[in-house]
């Protein structure tokens, strides 16, 4: 990467993560990759390589489907008739 003379390189919480697989049940780690509106942050913001970002998105989408992470920040409360 080009050296940034104006600002030191950002430290990413995913710098020490295995490149084989990211555990989708680790919701604490994955929540750091979501914005306030529970969207997935971009690789530029997280300072991730392309491979790492792909593993991350796969883990987040699995966790969303399995019920460990939310899809969005606001859910309607279920109406009980």
């Amino acid at each position, binding site marked *: 990467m080009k050296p940034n003379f104006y600002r030191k390189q950002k430290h990413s919480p995913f710098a020490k993560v295995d490149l084989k697989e990211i*555990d989708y049940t680790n919701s604490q780690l994955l929540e750091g990759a979501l914005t306030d509106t529970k969207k997935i942050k971009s690789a530029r913001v997280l300072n991730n390589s392309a491979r790492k970002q792909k593993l991350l998105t796969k883990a987040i989408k699995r966790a969303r489907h399995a019920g460990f992470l*939310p899809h969005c920040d606001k859910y309607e409360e*279920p109406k009980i008739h």
Partner: protein
Amino acid sequence: MRHYEIILLVKPDSDQVNDMIERYHQFIKSKSGVIHHTENMGRQTLVYPTHKLNKAYFVRMNIECDCAVQKELRSKFALNDAIMKYTIIRRDDSTIKPITFLQSKEPEVQRKHFSSYSERSEAAIIAPTETAAQS
């Protein structure tokens, strides 16, 4: 034989979660499958409401079986009224990592206002923080 990881969300009203799990165990064993690990994580509040409910039993199974057995299991989960959601993931092996979803969250580290990025410590970044609430 393929390795699969299954996560089930069962309705909170049902008291027969363990019986249900045993029935699936017997089905898998009858088809010459191997069960490496099962876990009933108990009733948890859901992150988002499903089927108009806010709580569910979380069940996790690591099994080894044929593809045809997995397809039959899928149809069984779909027909079962008590199971709200099921996810089946194929794995290379049945190594188990502890689920960190259930552990109590560590106290959030308050992010101080640093003059430059270089002064940030890694620990403050790794822990989840909510800057929007503070700013």
